[in-house]
């Protein structure tokens, strides 16, 4: 049987220390300026019994009103305001002598520690009852529990606040590491991403385009490049299976289309080539989740697990609108998912790529076409749009808009950095190999950077 809250709480004596609580209250009564000094740490929840909570509220109320905290004004305040417990003059007289100014900060921190333990214990007790209730959704309850725990853990008063000196020192460390060649942004092989340092920890990058332009292909290329550097990556796909994704990885190197590898009977030479390429690629640290029945909350839970167990630094979620299809209010769920994706990037210190579709309301993509919600634009640190007119020959578009309008659209695509928090905007022209569904920097197409192909290498 489920127990009531009171039954749960009364079962166990929770950590508290009445003497310390009275010492703190007495000091605050006598030294009102300490309330301002420790205002972000002081709260009624520090105190265990209702009487001490009420005394704290009274002292706080009088000080806030600009009054003096003598016994008469405190008693009058408690009579005229709802402080949660009936107080008498003797209650204030009793605590006056407990003054201890020298250890006030330690006492407050100790009360906070005990208060957080009590809060955590209560939350876990309540949540355990909810989890045992079979009518509640397990994953939702787990997510709620973890959010609550994060809240309690994060509630450290000024523990999350740093001084200018600390922040500057951290920046100096980053600069020194950059000088040594270490970098915390991920190398993708695409200049637009690398020169703007788009895939940094704590960032959410949205890759958006019309249908069948190559969003998944670009994301997969990026994952492959990052994983080749030894950085573990995770790919969450509701649309494609893992074997299809891997076949795209190896199709370029094996010089065969993905559909040939997946479906056709290969010749002996083709088999050798494929096995040679798979041997090189099989050790890449890429993890796939291609379950089609998974919810976004499950995906978030899985991401937390992957980061903790496999050390994943890059996560791709493919794609946003397909997750929203299962919800009643698609716009609201897209807002929730975009915000959650950003929150998880920040919480775990990873780079998240979220793939999104665009509404085809014009010939070329723009940021206004992000389908579903303006929250995507707000939550994302970077938004990269892919413009590939070659994918829609019926549109009869023969040129790019704006930059690169003098370049051919055949076998090329334009990557538009429509939003880059702290890095600006830009665009780049990249090559696209339709047969192998692969994007590449234009220098890497056949011909290479060394133009004098017939001349032997100089040394």
């Amino acid at each position, binding site marked *: 049987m489920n127990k009531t809250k009171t039954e749960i709480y009364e079962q166990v004596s929770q950590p508290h220390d009445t003497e310390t609580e009275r010492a703190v209250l007495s000091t605050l009564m006598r030294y009102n300026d300490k309330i301002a000094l420790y205002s972000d740490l002081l709260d009624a929840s520090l105190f265990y019994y209702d009487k001490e909570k009420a005394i704290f509220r009274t002292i706080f109320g009088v000080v806030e009103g600009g009054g003096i905290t003598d016994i008469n004004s405190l008693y009058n305040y408690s009579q005229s305001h709802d402080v949660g417990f009936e107080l008498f003059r003797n209650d204030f007289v009793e605590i006056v002598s407990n003054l201890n100014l020298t250890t006030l900060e330690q006492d407050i921190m100790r009360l906070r520690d005990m208060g957080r333990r009590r809060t955590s214990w209560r939350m876990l007790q309540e949540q355990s009852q909810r989890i045992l209730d079979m009518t509640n959704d397990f994953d939702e309850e787990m997510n709620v529990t973890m959010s609550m725990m994060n809240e309690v853990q994060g509630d450290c008063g000024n523990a999350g606040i740093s001084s200018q000196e600390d922040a500057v020192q951290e920046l100096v460390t980053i600069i020194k590491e950059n000088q*040594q*060649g*270490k970098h915390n942004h991920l*190398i993708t092989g695409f200049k637009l991403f690398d020169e703007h340092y788009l895939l940094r920890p704590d960032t959410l990058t949205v890759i958006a385009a019309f249908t069948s332009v190559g969003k998944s292909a670009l994301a997969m290329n990026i994952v492959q*490049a990052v994983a*080749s*550097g*030894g950085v573990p990556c995770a790919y969450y796909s509701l649309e494609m299976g893992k074997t299809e994704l891997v076949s795209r990885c190896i199709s370029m190197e094996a010089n065969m289309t993905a559909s040939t590898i997946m479906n056709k009977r290969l010749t002996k030479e083709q088999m050798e080539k494929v096995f040679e390429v798979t041997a*090189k690629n099989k050790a890449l640290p890429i993890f796939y989740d291609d379950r089609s029945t998974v919810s976004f909350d499950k995906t978030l839970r899985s991401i937390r697990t992957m980061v903790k167990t496999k050390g994943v630094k890059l996560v791709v979620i493919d794609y946003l609108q397909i997750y929203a299809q299962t919800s009643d209010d698609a716009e609201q769920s897209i807002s929730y998912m975009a915000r959650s994706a950003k929150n998880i990037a920040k919480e775990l210190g990873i780079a998240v790529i979220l793939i999104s579709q665009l509404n085809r309301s014009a010939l070329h993509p723009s940021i206004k076409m992000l389908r579903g919600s303006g929250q995507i634009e707000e939550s994302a640190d970077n938004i990269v749009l892919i413009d590939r007119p070659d994918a829609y020959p019926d549109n009869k578009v023969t040129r790019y808009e704006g930059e690169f309008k003098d370049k051919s659209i055949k076998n090329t695509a334009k990557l538009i950095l429509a939003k880059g928090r702290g890095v600006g905007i830009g665009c780049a022209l990249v090559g696209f190999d339709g047969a192998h569904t692969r994007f590449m920097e234009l220098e890497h197409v056949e011909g*290479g*950077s*060394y133009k004098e192909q017939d001349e032997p*290498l*100089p*040394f």
Partner: protein
Amino acid sequence: MSRREYIENIIIGTLLDYSGGDYYQDCKCSITEDMIQDETNKRIFHLICDMRKKGKAMTTPLDLYQEYGFMIEDMVADMCEKCNEYSFLHLKTEYNENRFIQSLITGEKYKRTDVQFTDYVNQYFKLSYE
């Protein structure tokens, strides 16, 4: 020394000589340990990959020795020699300087090369699969 051995030395020497460019990025996707023929080069390449996995960008002989100590004492002289004599940037600079001096002597137009390290990586890749 065959052409393949020579280019292999250039690649290893360049990776050891960290002179302002991250050459490891240029060859990490193309070159694997099993492609390298010379045993010493193979060991050096393995150590460099190991260092990079640990997040250390500097892979000069000194850095490798500080990391692996007595285990690689027998290779230190070899590493220093490769670093000095086969570094890509050093060879390219020397080539261009020689061409420049030659142009001054002969009066011909000075024609420098702008060959990239990746060209040598590509050439090595082709030679490995011939």
